[in-house]
């Protein structure tokens, strides 16, 4: 069953009661919430994702709720609970849905050590994965969102999961997080894309989530072999330019983007070395012209 097959009241009942066991790639999260904005967002952005049975094992138990006490009403807040514990301070109630997305990312980063995880977007074309590691503000999510609306498949906009046994990248295919000017940029670039209501005044500025393309969600069990590692940098007004980067320097930049590289020690080093061995590494500068940027990556894929 997918989420869209639940009636609205059925979805609300699940979220308010036993929880919605939502599958995103290899991860099943049991989500509970009575917050209307969260219910609405789940209905819209996770419509095509599998809603597992109540007896399905859940990797995480996540709840977004309004706290008891005065902050339930006075400048109302929302808080996130994971396995009954609150790992973060409460946020304004209006941030409830982004909080869910950030919380799910945190769960994976903190616990999914069966994978080697990098802070990177990753998309796929012709069976090969393009990894885009970069710090916040570099434009990787904008690029990622643009690419997945021009023929590339979304694997993840935030966390790249590398399978230790195979070296393949495992998809999550969750909604893409966009910030500030990128929101309007993507609205214009992909007029048929579905966006959440923008949430203002977060620590990241204004945030909105773009629903993952249906094809990406349908193929969320298909892993992909990494082929390119490209470090993007947004520079307003710049023409799109792709430059080669040595494998050794690419390796070190990936270490900087490592979420749990240090947890794995030598095994992480060896796994990353194998990935680098099979990848071409590049630096990429672009000025915000998505068509120009995507043409560069399409050409890269065509040469592979």
């Amino acid at each position: 069953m997918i989420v869209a097959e639940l009636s609205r009241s059925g979805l609300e009942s699940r979220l308010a009661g036993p929880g919605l066991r939502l599958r995103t790639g290899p991860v099943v999260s049991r989500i509970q919430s009575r917050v209307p904005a969260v219910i609405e967002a789940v209905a819209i952005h996770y419509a095509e994702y599998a809603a597992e049975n109540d007896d399905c094992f859940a990797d995480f138990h996540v709840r977004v709720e309004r706290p008891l006490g005065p902050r339930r009403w006075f400048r109302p807040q929302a808080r996130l609970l994971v396995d009954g514990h609150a790992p973060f301070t409460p946020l304004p109630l209006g941030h409830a849905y982004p909080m869910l997305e950030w919380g799910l990312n945190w769960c994976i980063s903190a616990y999914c050590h069966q994978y080697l995880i990098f802070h990177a977007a990753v998309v796929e074309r012709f069976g090969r994965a393009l990894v885009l590691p970069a710090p916040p503000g570099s434009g990787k999510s904008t690029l990622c969102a643009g690419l997945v609306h021009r023929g590339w498949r979304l694997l993840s906009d935030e966390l790249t999961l590398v399978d230790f046994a195979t070296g393949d990248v495992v998809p999550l295919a969750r909604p893409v997080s966009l910030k500030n000017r990128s929101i309007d940029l993507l609205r214009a670039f992909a007029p048929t894309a579905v966006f959440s209501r923008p949430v203002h005044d977060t620590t990241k500025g204004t945030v909105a989530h773009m629903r993952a393309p249906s094809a990406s969600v349908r193929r969320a069990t298909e892993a992909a072999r990494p082929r390119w590692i490209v470090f993007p940098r947004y520079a307003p007004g710049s023409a799109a330019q792709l430059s080669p980067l040595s494998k050794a320097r690419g390796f070190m930049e990936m270490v900087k983007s490592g979420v749990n590289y240090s947890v794995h020690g030598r095994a992480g080093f060896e796994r990353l070395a194998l990935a680098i061995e099979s990848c071409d590494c590049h630096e990429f500068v672009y000025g915000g012209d998505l068509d120009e940027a995507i043409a560069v990556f399409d050409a890269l894929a065509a040469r592979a």
Partner: protein
Amino acid sequence: MSILSGSEARWHATPSSALASREWNGEVVVYNDRTGSTHLLDEFAGAILRELCATGAGMAVDDLAVALTGDAASVAASDLTAAITVVLAEFDRLGLARAERP
């Protein structure tokens, strides 16, 4: 005189069982089990570490100069031994090698 600059000091790499490395086009990335750190070495530093790892007896700066150039006369080139000394000091700081008095 600093042990690090004395020509009589013999340098030993961290045991190779604690190191993992990969080389691409002369650049080397090396992981140190003892510190959990990963380092990027240029071709020169990578060659020095390789020489140190290849011998268990330790090497003096002059020995390294000869090993790197294959030319005993190069030992007299103070800029080479000075450059080697700089790298070895960095290795010491990073925990990749250490000096011992004879």
